[in-house]
């Protein structure tokens, strides 16, 4: 997704929140929770604690939002709040930040280790693994054009316009292909997520 497109759309959502629409903030949370969690995990290794810090940062952001004038991108503004919240957590716990290099060769392994040792229950890990396997299975069966569209969007972060240019088709077609890919995955995932998001059926 291009920065300009995201910036404009974020700003629209921010304006909605500022005019009293809480639901628009949910969309911002959904959009940035992954990035925020990764950012927090640089400071706090415990997964449960990281979730708490991420939550606290989002709530602080919501409360501070009336003062956001759009001089910088929303995420740049949010980033500062997240970093400050994470640092304050460490200060109050009298701990030093982790020297956690996400780009190191064994980062994937250490990430898995931290998942196994901190926070996530075996059931949650099982759910995550089941979810991943399901998504991979559906992805492998998707028509080529749908798979390409959603991979370029979700993994490479391209905007619809950039994808349209890359695969030489109208932007509307890109939008439709990405939706159809999501819909196909969603149909398979819905039973897994039913009974509460991120939780298996009782």
């Amino acid at each position: 997704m291009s920065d300009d497109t995201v910036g404009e759309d974020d700003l629209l959502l921010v304006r909605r929140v500022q005019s009293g629409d809480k639901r628009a903030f949910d969309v911002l949370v959904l959009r940035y929770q992954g990035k925020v969690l990764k950012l927090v995990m640089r400071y706090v290794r415990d997964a449960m604690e990281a979730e708490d810090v991420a939550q606290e940062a989002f709530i602080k952001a919501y409360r501070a939002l009336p003062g956001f004038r759009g001089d910088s991108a929303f995420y740049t503004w949010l980033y500062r709040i997240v970093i400050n919240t994470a640092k304050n957590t460490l200060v109050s716990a009298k701990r030093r930040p982790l020297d956690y290099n996400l780009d190191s060769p064994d980062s994937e392994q250490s990430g898995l280790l931290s998942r196994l040792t901190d926070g996530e229950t075996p059931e949650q890990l099982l759910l995550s693994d089941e979810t991943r396997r399901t998504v991979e299975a559906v992805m492998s069966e998707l028509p080529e054009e749908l798979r390409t569209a959603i991979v370029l969007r979700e993994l490479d972060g391209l905007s619809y316009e950039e994808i349209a240019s890359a695969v030489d088709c109208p932007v509307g077609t890109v939008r439709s292909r990405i939706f159809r890919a999501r819909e196909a995955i969603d149909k398979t995932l819905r039973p897994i997520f039913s009974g509460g998001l991120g939780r298996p059926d009782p």
Partner: protein
Amino acid sequence: MSDTLNEQISALVDGELPAAETELLLRRLDREPALRETLTRYSLIGAVLRGDAVSSGSRVTLGVSAALAAEKAHVPAARRHDTPQRIFKVLGGLAVAATVAGLAIFGLMHRPGFDGAAVPQIAISTPVVSPVRSVHAPAARQSVSGSFLASHDEPQSYVTPAAQPSLGVIPRAQLASYVVAHSEVSSPLGLTSVLNNLVTDGPAAGVNGQ
């Protein structure tokens, strides 16, 4: 749920939904839990594909949503600032602007060579907050309220007389004093315009009162 709506949700997740559609969709999301669940699942699909922690993400979303449910929604900035003081300030600004505009027209009508008969005669009412004392208000226009105001040392009239050759006008010195006295609240452009007229007009240019 229609495919059209779900396609809009998909585009919203990507930040690619046009502004007008976003406004409408957010309203529907507020009313329809099923749409919100779709929005959450579509977001989580992206998290799964990127290898993010899905369960953590959903807990953050639910946690923030629950915490914000107890929070008051933000009040729009415009509504917050609509205090009586602000309204008074706006009205005051309009009054000053009207006064300056009145003076500018007045000055224009008394420029050398201006033919007062060529345009309709108009009386310009100036707002109460910045009255212009009428020097030659016709007696017929004096009213009970005019007498009351006069007895309380208030301006006798709030009507700037229309430019008529037979009537006098505000003396040049008095107009200059007025403009200087109100220079702090006049717009620079209006002030310059009026002062220019006073400076450049010849001595015989309609200074009937001197």
